[in-house]
């Protein structure tokens, strides 16, 4: 009998081009996603060395980080414009399909890959962006790379990679009512820290993971990198196949059924072992709010902001002290007492149709607090259209939200959507690093439902109680 294997090992073995003792493996890359920020120097490198793109057909580009979300055609920042124009020229020169700013397929790279069916089980997928881990939700081995590696993949369609260690993140039981995939992944990182995945590829398993929709799975896998893991994936199942059926780039008709049969074989074998395992009880997870300056600094909405005295190591004490100072919080204060002035619903973590629907449900018939500026930025052009078809835009606008065009927007504030020093934002994105949403701005990561509730209340509230109240 063959040794049982994990899905990670299976995908790996299917992609080894060259294996030599004492060297990384040369791995074939099935899909290379490209965006404007991390690619210009890579294309320039090709030009300087007289090289071409080996597989333009396996390469797909979009513009997302810099794009304006108010008026599409007005790019005030000339440097941003240059970066987008550069991508356009590069794609023309090297024959790469580009969903530019006015294209109906445009959107955040990790949102449109799955939407178009480019993301498929069993593929190796890379992008010059750390949240490439998102695509792992489909049972793909997907990870972020630097610009030198982008150039390497463009030129050779391969990468040198040392086989990763494997980590099973097992989530038992069921998530409670009002508790989301975002809360789950934040709770995992809160419990095990921002480093526990370093050197590993994670596989999320367990009943709570199986119960998640594709969009929720993407939210979980998206934040694998915040735990240090370059990739996190989930064995594909009926939920995956149903999501993919009929999408533009997947095989159609009978060929699709054949593909599904192949994808089923990817599942981790009974008895396969991992290099490490962590386990979480889903029922114990509560809605989360980050209080500090990395995603591991998060607590349940019912808890108080921690104090440096709770830490054992000096370096940890210092870190908490610094974070409290930056965030302008008092040790021991209830997180629900923290007032906000901005809400951002968007990013490759939480900007999909189901995220917008859930946030809209929370605010339907309510009003955004007068102290709060709230914006919704759909993940892609097609999500925006679909949401408008359902009237979600009206729900948001009636409540006092701004309804914007698609893009990364205030997730990293490279466009005009930027906060001022001292601003405090409830954000559905994935990073609460210092200055992420603007120099001196303070970011609290939450789920779309929690962000919507906070927009109305003007401070953090437990969405489980909030939604139980009458709309009044």
């Amino acid at each position, binding site marked *: 009998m063959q040794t049982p294997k994990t899905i990670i090992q299976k995908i790996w073995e299917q992609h080894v*081009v060259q294996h030599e003792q004492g060297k990384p493996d040369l791995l074939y890359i099935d899909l290379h996603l490209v965006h404007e920020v991390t690619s210009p120097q890579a294309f320039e490198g090709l030009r300087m060395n007289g090289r071409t793109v080996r597989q333009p057909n396996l390469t797909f580009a979009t513009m997302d980080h810099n794009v304006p979300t108010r008026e599409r055609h007005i790019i005030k920042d000339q*440097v941003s414009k240059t970066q987008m124009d550069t991508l356009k020229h590069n794609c023309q020169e090297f024959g790469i399909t580009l969903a530019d700013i006015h294209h109906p397929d445009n959107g955040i790279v990790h949102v449109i890959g799955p939407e178009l069916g480019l993301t498929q089980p069993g593929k190796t997928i890379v992008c010059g962006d*750390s949240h490439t881990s998102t695509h792992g939700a489909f049972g793909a081995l997907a990870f972020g790379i630097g610009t030198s590696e982008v150039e390497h993949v463009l*030129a050779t369609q391969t990468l040198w990679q040392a086989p990763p260690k494997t980590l099973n993140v097992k989530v038992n039981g069921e998530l409670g009512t009002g508790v989301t995939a975002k809360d789950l992944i934040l709770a995992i990182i809160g419990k095990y820290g921002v*480093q526990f995945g370093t050197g590993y590829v994670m596989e999320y398993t367990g009943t709570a993971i199986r119960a998640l929709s594709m969009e929720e799975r993407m939210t979980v896998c998206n934040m694998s990198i915040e735990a240090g893991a370059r990739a996190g994936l989930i064995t594909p199942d009926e939920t995956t196949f149903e999501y993919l059926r009929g999408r533009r780039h997947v095989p159609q008709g009978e060929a699709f059924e054949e593909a599904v049969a192949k994808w089923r074989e990817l599942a981790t074998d009974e008895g396969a072992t991992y290099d490490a395992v962590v386990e979480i009880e889903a029922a114990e997870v509560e809605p989360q709010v980050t209080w500090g300056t990395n995603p591991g600094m998060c607590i349940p909405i019912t808890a108080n902001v921690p104090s440096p005295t709770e830490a054992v190591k000096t370096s940890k004490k210092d870190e908490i002290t610094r974070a409290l100072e930056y965030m302008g919080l008092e040790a021991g204060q209830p997180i629900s007492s923290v007032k906000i002035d901005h809400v951002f619903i968007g990013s490759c973590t939480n900007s999909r149709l189901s995220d917008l629907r859930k946030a809209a449900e929370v605010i339907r018939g309510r009003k955004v607090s007068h102290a709060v500026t709230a914006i919704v930025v759909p993940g892609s052009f097609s999500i925006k259209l679909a949401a408008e078809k359902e009237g979600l835009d009206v729900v948001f606008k009636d409540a006092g939200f701004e309804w914007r065009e698609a893009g990364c927007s205030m997730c990293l504030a*490279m466009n005009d959507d930027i906060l001022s020093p001292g601003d405090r934002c409830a954000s559905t994105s994935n990073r609460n690093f210092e200055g992420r949403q603007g120099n001196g701005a303070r970011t609290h990561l939450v789920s779309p439902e929690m962000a919507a509730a906070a927009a109305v209340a003007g401070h953090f509230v437990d969405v489980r109680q909030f939604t139980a109240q009458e709309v009044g």
Partner: protein
Amino acid sequence: MEPLRTHKGLVCPLNRTNVDTDQIIPKQFLKRIERSGFGQFLFYHWRFDDNGNPRPDFPLNDAKYKDASILVAGENFGCGSSREHAPWAVQDFGFKVIIAPSYADIFKNNCVKNGILAIQASEEQVQAIMEKAESEGYTLTVNLEEQVVYDHEGLEVKFDIAPYPKQMLLNGWDEIGVTLTYEEKINHYELVHQQP
């Protein structure tokens, strides 16, 4: 890429953990389309206040570290975004070697591609070096071939590095050039797997 065999340089301590790439090079500086010129923006918001004046308490602004080429930092250095602008900034500022208890995977990879040696040492060793680096003119010598770092006061740190990145750094190879010598293999893979 320039080969890196031995290096002797002044040490600058950065006593912070989980330093993310958003701090190493903030997003407003990612819009350039060149590879060079990022050093001036390294740790921008830690180095400069809101009016663009240097913050006197930040080590990189301390005159005694002006010519430092070895950066010592806390665990999980380079976490977060994959932006290679981070190692470009570190290098352009003048650093050739980093020493820390641990690194984020993508950052570490990006360092190798740019000829920066990211040495992993134990937390105690890193602390010891940080303390020594408080004094003026503290230098370390790095010998990559021998995988050792030492000073002239008897400190010696042996470090691990995988053979492949070691060779890359020692020889300053152009990795794409190396890979293209395997073109036959790639052709074969594509034939078997019916890639276009």
